[in-house]
């Protein structure tokens, strides 16, 4: 009963990601790459994504707050971030990256800083939503406990 409820909860969480357009179909592509030999592939990829993205966002933030922004450097970092975001299906994050880059290219620095703040929010929102999702999945799999008889009680 509890297992069924948990499954429904996980399914509902997952569906909400698509309904809210936080994730797109590329996430489903990732899920299809999981198999018995690699059951945690999606979580591993996302862990790596957030590890890299956290560092990158800090670096970009430091760069755009300076008086002499290296625009080419920032653009390349955002280009790379867009690539990995697209690869995991992070739809809103990807769109915000595009918006930030566009504003930087137009020379609209204040607009780009605002867009970057939105990007950070979307990124943090994505992580905040995915972490409990994977925790619930882990609960569903759970440690396998087998009932064992106490010692000295081997009788029918």
């Amino acid at each position, binding site marked *: 009963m509890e297992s069924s409820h948990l499954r429904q909860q996980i399914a509902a969480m997952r569906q909400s990601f698509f309904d809210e357009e936080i994730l797109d179909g590329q996430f489903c592509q990732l899920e299809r790459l999981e198999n018995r030999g*690699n059951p945690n592939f999606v979580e591993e990829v996302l862990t790596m994504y957030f590890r890299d993205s956290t560092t990158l966002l800090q670096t970009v933030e430091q760069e755009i707050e300076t008086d002499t922004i290296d625009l080419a450097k920032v653009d390349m970092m955002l280009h790379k971030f867009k690539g*990995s975001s697209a*690869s995991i299906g992070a739809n809103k994050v990807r769109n915000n990256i595009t918006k930030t880059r566009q504003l930087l290219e137009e020379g609209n620095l204040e607009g780009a800083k605002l867009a970057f703040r939105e990007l950070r929010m979307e990124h943090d929102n994505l992580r905040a939503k995915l972490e409990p999702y994977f925790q619930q999945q882990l609960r569903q799999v759970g440690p396998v406990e087998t009932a064992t008889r106490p010692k000295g009680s081997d009788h029918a």
Partner: protein
Amino acid sequence: MAAQGRHGGKKSNKMTALVVDDNTVNRMIHHRLLDNLGIENVAVVNGKEAVDIHCSGKTFDLILMDMDMPVMNGIEATRQLREMGIRSMIAGVSTRSMEREIREFIEAGLDDYQEKPLTMSKLISIIHKING
């Protein structure tokens, strides 16, 4: 000396591939895509490592080449591999969408180009070109 396959790879039952990408997430995904198709694969992090691995004597049926990488980008790496006589299928994979940029990459010696993100169906279409 191992017999050369159609695109320069070792002639064996199992197809081999080289993933060239500086991004960890992309390397993981491309590796898994290839693994799931039963393709033995190795990953390197930039164009120079791709050239170096070939200089060491290794060859692959397929090379998935990212465009923007530090040290040596995909355009230069592709050019050098072709100059070395490497005839493997080289498929460029990038998020670049401007025609001018893609054309420069293709003219460096690509056999195919696919826009990221790479999916199973895109990878299968690349592989069909090897076997076709």
